[in-house]
């Protein structure tokens, strides 16, 4: 029960961290391709 509730509470910040990593890496890629194509990021 204790383990289950620990996971239930802490899985969300872990998921948030995963999404944050995905978004940051994708933005780096966006930035690189914008530079290569000589256009603005937004």
């Amino acid at each position, binding site marked *: *029960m*204790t*383990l289950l*509730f*620990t996971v*239930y*509470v*802490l899985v*969300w*910040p872990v*998921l*948030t*961290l995963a*999404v*944050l990593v*995905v*978004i*940051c*890496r*994708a*933005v*780096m*890629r*966006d930035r690189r*391709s*914008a530079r290569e194509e000589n*256009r*603005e*990021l*937004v």
Partner: protein
Amino acid sequence: MNNESLYQFSSLTVILLLLAFYGGTYLMTFGIRKKNEDADAFMVSNHRVGFGMGAASMTATWIWAASFYAAATSGYTYGVSGPIHYGLWGALMILFIYPFGRRFRKLAPNAHTLGELIHARHGASSQLILALSNVLGSVISLMVNFTAAGALVSVLSPLSFQAGVIIAGFGVLLYTLWSGFRASVLTDFAQLVALMAIAIVIIPAVFFAMGGPSQLVAGLANLTPEQNNFFSPDAILNQGAPFFVAVLAYAIGNQTISQRLFAVNEDHIKPTFLTATLGYGAIVIGLGMIGLMALTLGIEPLNGDMNNLIPQMVSSYLSPFFIALFFILVIGSLSSTADSDLSALSAIIMADVYGKNIARGKADPKRMLFIGRLTMIVATVVGIVFASFSLDILVMLVFVGALWGAIVFPVIASCFWDRVTNTAFTVSVLAAMLLFCIARFELVPLTGLGGLFFELLASIGGGVIIGLMVFGFLGRTIGFIAGVLAMIAMLIFATGFLHDYTVLLASLTAYGTSTLVCVVLSLASRKPRFDFATIGRKVGNYDHTLDEKSADDRPQTPPRHTTANA
């Protein structure tokens, strides 16, 4: 309302925090600022916003201050399943719109608002109904966000509520005014990174500071059986179901979503919206867990105000450094939504009102920009005034909710079915609004035949919601079957008791009525079937018109762009 029981920053500290936040955000926008912005970029960037920026912007926009407070309230009220019943449905709003979004984008790749697409499909009356619903939604959102800023500043410092409202209002306007949507998207990324980083730290910090897993499990004994039940019918009926009904309506009625649909690279719509769904769900459900923690500890919300739950927990268990982080988290979330609302409102007035109905295809991009910026200033002032005077917006909220519910089927059907007419669209929305009001305000007795009549319409509405959701992912046939099955289930199980839940009954009635009227009038129409290919030709970029005009002034120079404007 300065609260002595919560940790209090000095006025200077809060002002410095706000200055650092809004000053830093403003400085960021200098990196993209152009002396002469163009109207299209001001509304939707270059239609090629990448996956990372798009997902960050979508997530940051959809998370507003109320997301945390409401998720925590849900956790505190409904127990273990509460945060899920808020965050999951909010996240699914993003997910369920993307299949329709891809269709919108395919029909009108260069649109700036959903209203432009509907204008090309039907004409002014349908478009203006949609634009009106978008405007009302964004004004309400602005007001709510500024109110949250005022409330936060007033509970954590000696500064007044009005001071918080005004600083937030002008802070957001400051960095959004010049570059519009481009500034909004860029700052959304930075705000989201801050927001996520803080959420990642704060949730475990509160969890372990309150006593950790053993304390949480021991505290479960304080919960009622309903609160301990992960499949609590109470939580589903009172929190989950009303949110579920609103899933499609919020997404269709919100220009901040359509704007991003038209701004992101067309190939990246799916990953962008999937990532935003996950990001929103994780952050909001995670912060909602703080409400559950408060419940297990038996904490009473300060002054009986549920919005104090998270500040109270952070204030009780964490150091001032974390409280400052929490302050930035809330300011970041409300600012990212408020700047998106300003961009949405300016795009609606620029494209839907000026571009399509005043200039009628001969829009001057420079005048458009001026109108867009003026709209932002007016909207900010209106938001600040509404928030400062704590105006009662309940009636406005009720009507906006009804309008959003009423337009869902006509908007979606108009993009897939070539027989829907302008009359069918307009009349169905008006009829749905009328019957919604009758049910919502119980203008006729909702018992006997009257009650049965509305329950039948509501059952159709329930079928429509399920049918559209399934249709978006699995296609017409399966969607139709799912809709019919849901309607039959509603007829069997909801008839006889739904009239006791007037809010739910009225909302479902809006869906059911607009669908029924729209379908009947469309089938009865003798008008020729609509050619969807014409939409793409009618909706285009405004600055290209200027380019072509310039080119026309130089007879020997061939035009650089072909105009797609109507």
